[in-house]
């Protein structure tokens, strides 16, 4: 057993950190909007080639695996940066690999393709295997909501029903395809997002990922991989939150002593670390479980997500609480982390969905 990162992986983490420290700050995050995100994306794709972490060397990628993705996501989490990385490099990367979409995989690696997942629909429950969007006579029609990152995306992955009986299929569509209307808004974590309307959008067989009706399974597997990366992001976020909070309560004086002198707060911070370390242990477990062993993998990923979501919730809530009034402002990073914590937890179905799957996996 060995839980150490390789030298290359350590270097990778350092280079990401160095880049972010130089090119990403809170002000750009809060005020820069889509433009700042696009600029960082270009930088990270071109200068660091990060989007190719999981693309095989034969396709011009770095040929890494989930551990490399974890290293990157964790740094992104520490700096609260670049929310399209996981959906593109990990979710779409996994999907394209599984569905043998070689060309698409290559474009992800070069940073040319930025992907947004258009799956959620009004009123849809998490874990849905059927959707309201339909393909009839080669034309796709429907509405997708909460499409995170859509205004930045070059491509959408769209779930649609081709047949009454089966589960949905997935399609890869260029964002400028005729018949797609976007109405943009912002998510609470500052991410640009859109509602997408598809009206008689022509979808040829070449745009389908995998077989008819295979979308639900393809999606679940890619979402599980992405959940591992998001948990790495969560671990990075918790590390920063805990460090920042410790520094804050050590620096601030009330009642003639630093806040850190109060045992109630010391114990709270100790609990924050316990939650973090639970999450980290289960992250490693999921990372080191072979996805080919589908039962073990599902149990590992879903269990990890349950505990990681609990941890991120606790740590982010307590970080705000321990900052007092400052914690609820948009001035300090802690409030921005708090909102990102909510969206990270809600990704791909939210903690409740994973808990049910975990409970079922114990059978």
């Amino acid at each position, binding site marked *: 057993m060995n839980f150490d990162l390789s030298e290359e992986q350590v270097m990778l983490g350092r280079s990401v950190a160095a880049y972010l420290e130089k090119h990403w700050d809170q002000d750009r995050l809060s005020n820069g909007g889509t433009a700042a995100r696009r600029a960082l994306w270009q930088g990270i794709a071109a200068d660091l080639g990060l989007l190719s972490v999981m693309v095989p060397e034969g396709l011009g990628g770095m040929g890494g695996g989930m551990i490399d993705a974890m290293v990157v996501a964790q740094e992104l989490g520490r700096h609260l940066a670049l929310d399209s990385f996981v959906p593109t490099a990990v979710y779409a990367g996994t999907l394209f690999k599984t569905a043998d979409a070689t060309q698409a995989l290559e474009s992800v690696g070069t940073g040319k393709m930025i992907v947004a997942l258009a799956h*959620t*629909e*009004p*009123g*849809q*429950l*998490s874990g*849905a295997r*059927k*959707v*309201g969007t339909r393909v009839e006579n080669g034309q796709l029609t429907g509405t997708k*909501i*909460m499409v995170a990152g859509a205004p930045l995306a070059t491509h959408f992955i769209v779930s649609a029903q081709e047949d009454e009986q089966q589960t949905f299929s997935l399609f890869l569509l260029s964002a400028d395809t005729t018949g797609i209307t976007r109405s943009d*808004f*912002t*998510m*609470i*974590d*500052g991410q640009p*997002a859109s*509602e997408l309307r598809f009206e008689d959008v022509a979808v040829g067989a070449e745009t389908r990922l995998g077989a008819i009706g295979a979308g639900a399974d393809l999606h679940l597997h890619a979402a599980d991989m992405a959940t591992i990366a998001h948990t790495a992001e969560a671990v990075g976020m918790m590390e920063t939150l805990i460090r920042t909070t410790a520094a804050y309560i050590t620096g601030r*004086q*009330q*009642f*003639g002593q630093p806040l850190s002198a*109060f045992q*109630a*707060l010391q114990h709270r911070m100790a609990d924050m670390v316990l939650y973090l370390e639970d999450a980290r242990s289960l992250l490693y477990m999921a990372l080191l479980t072979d996805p080919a062993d589908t039962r073990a993998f599902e149990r590992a990923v879903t269990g990890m997500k349950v505990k990681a979501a609990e941890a991120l919730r606790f740590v982010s*809530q307590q970080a*705000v*609480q321990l900052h*007092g*009034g400052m*914690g*609820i*402002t*948009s*001035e300090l990073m802690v*409030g*921005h982390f*708090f*909102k990102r914590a*909510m*969206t990270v937890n*809600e990704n791909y179905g*939210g903690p*409740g969905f994973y*808990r*049910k799957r975990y409970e079922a996996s114990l059978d």
Partner: protein
Amino acid sequence: MDASPDPDLEAFRKTVRDFLHQTITPDIRAQAQRQAGIAAEPALGIWWLKELHKKGWAAPAWPKEYGGTGWDAARRHIFEEECVRAGAPTLWVSGHQLLGPVVMQFGTQAQKDFFLPRILNGEHYWSQGFSEPGSGSDLASLSTQAVLDGDHYIVNGGKIWTSHAHWSNWIFLLVRTAKPANKREGITFLVAPTDTPGITVQPIVSMSGEHETNQVFLDNVRIPVTNRIGDEGLGWAIAKYLLEFERAGSYAAQAQASLDEARIAAKSPDPVTGERQWDDPQFRRDFADAQLRVTAQSWMEKRVVSAISSGQNVGDAIASILKLRGSECQQAAQEVSVAALGPLGMADQRAALKPGSNEAAIGTPSAIRPTAKYLNGRAASIYGGSNEIQRNILFRFISAGQVP
């Protein structure tokens, strides 16, 4: 022991309901729905206060001699409950809930005659200048200075978290007039119009994007001695008296409203499969946990209200207990109401969160408020004496043998 409804109180409840039914029209209700802060913005709040004033209900907690309703605790509680149920705008409390009782208790006759009617009719809109950048939980360490110069105090320093200061035309302040060894002495309570030269208000934007609170700079502000409430050095006693009114209040009704919204959202079926989140055992368990917290709080409030109404001394610890459990159950309920929205809860709805805004909701109208309410609601365990401080206070009562 007997929990059967009192006919007098039920008749009173009906009177309140009838009035609310007429006044809180669907349009007002919809506007109030677009408010996610601690209280409604004055555009809506002052309208509501004036409606209540016409009815003679602007100050439920004040005695009749000052223009209040003279209601006992049970009636006040019913009134608050029904206002929440009707979806009325949440009133900003600094004037009638905080300053009013202080003026009645500590003010001169001239101060009573001047301030109380103007609080009632909404002419004066108050903000509370207690906290300072260096003095939050440790309020008594405050350092804003007031130096006597003839018949004026000259005030220098600054306040922070002064909610609604950008809308208010009056502010009450705790200032330091002496520096004795005991920092609780030497504090004095002053009031001033916010357009007094030397007062500058700077916005603080909350993480949900709202501007509800401020930093206030005080730079050679001249406040006449006649605007001092109580004697010099009495400020701490006054502040303690006032904070009891801030910590009281009913949380259960608000929290229940969040849960009721969550229930409705969770019961709407997936248009494709017909399945409901309400039938999801995981969601139902989280909902039930929150419901039990709210139910326990509601019965605690009933117990306290009933005891106060029958003239019993409920003890000071109960204020901390109500505040702790109240803020906790409210936060739990708000969290469930966000969860009930699923991914839609992750949309930033701030464009629609304005009174009179015609901006469409992202998704459905019921998604406009819960997330911003949850984000703002994190402050409930911080302001009015943080929950850590409340637990410290509660233990003082425990160690003194007064609780349980």
